[in-house]
């Protein structure tokens, strides 16, 4: 709970909350001295970080960077102008992005990305015809931790019996 409130406070501080959420946090801040302190602490931390960053920037030596930029400009001036139009680059980027997105969509939609349906089955009641023999068994698939149920009905005995009866009746 406290962690969630901390996150919310951090988002409030960063200006990421919706108007309604921000109002709720403001109401909480009025009532909670702890939250006020935490908000102040966030402000102080940001100030310290900014100061540290500024000090680092002041100390940095940009002379080499500018030398590099000047050299780069001079080299580019010496080269022949590029033939590729800016629209080619722009449309190239758009096409490449579209292709990348299409590939992503295909991968996400691919049946391979979704697990195959499971087959686990419960036979609640089984009735087989007179003279038939039924067997229920499962075929395990350890790879998918799944099992397929099979009902095997053998009525060949019954068929043979019927054939014999028909033959005997014919003889009579």
């Amino acid at each position, binding site marked *: 709970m406290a962690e969630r409130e901390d996150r919310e406070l951090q988002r409030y501080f960063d200006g990421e909350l919706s108007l309604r959420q921000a109002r709720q946090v403001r109401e909480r801040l009025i009532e909670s001295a702890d939250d006020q302190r935490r908000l102040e602490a966030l402000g102080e931390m940001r100030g310290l970080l900014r100061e540290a960053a500024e000090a680092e920037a002041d100390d940095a030596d940009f002379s080499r960077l500018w030398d590099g930029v000047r050299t780069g400009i001079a080299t580019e001036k010496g080269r022949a102008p590029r033939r590729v139009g800016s629209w080619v680059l*722009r*449309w190239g980027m*758009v096409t490449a*992005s*579209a292709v990348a*997105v*299409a590939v992503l*969509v295909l991968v*996400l*939609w691919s049946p391979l990305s979704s697990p*195959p*349906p*499971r*087959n*686990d*089955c*419960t*036979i*609640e*009641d*089984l*009735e*087989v*015809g*007179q*003279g*038939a023999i*039924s067997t229920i068994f499962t*075929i395990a*698939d350890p790879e998918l931790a799944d099992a*397929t*149920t*099979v*009902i*095997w*009905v*053998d*009525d*060949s005995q*019954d*068929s043979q019996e019927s054939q014999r009866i028909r033959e005997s009746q014919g003889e009579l």
Partner: protein
Amino acid sequence: MRRALALSFVATIFAAPFSVEAAGAGSAAKVAAADQVQCTIRTAVGSEKAGGVDKRLSKLRKQFSKPPFSAFKSIKLLSTRSLTIGQGASQRATLPNSKVLKLTFKERLLAQGKQRLRLHLSITKPKSRKFLPGTLYTIADGGTLLVGGAQHQGGTLIFAITCKAK
């Protein structure tokens, strides 16, 4: 203008999966109001003739590689029927051996957050109670039940019954 068109194209592609997801969720809610299942009945024949497993049965290749199916040198798909069955209703399909498969969708169950379907299956000759007059079973949504053993033209028939909530 061109930039706007390009951006809208990319945005459409990005948004596509999410809009489909949303449509899927919406249709699931509708199904709850009027339950239906889509069942596929595949009839195959296993025989001693060489030929391997029919490519159209590739989803069942693993099961067919194990006994008793592994005894067949070939398993060939004879027919595929698709049935849409409403809750409490039955649908019939005539099988290649002239037996009639009758499937009744009883209800949809929710067990441990997963959908299961309760169905009643019978495979008999018309006006007969031989072979398989009644089987009540519950199966995972999209799961397949195999029924085999009926003799047909020197081979053995295998029925694969797959049902999925619509």
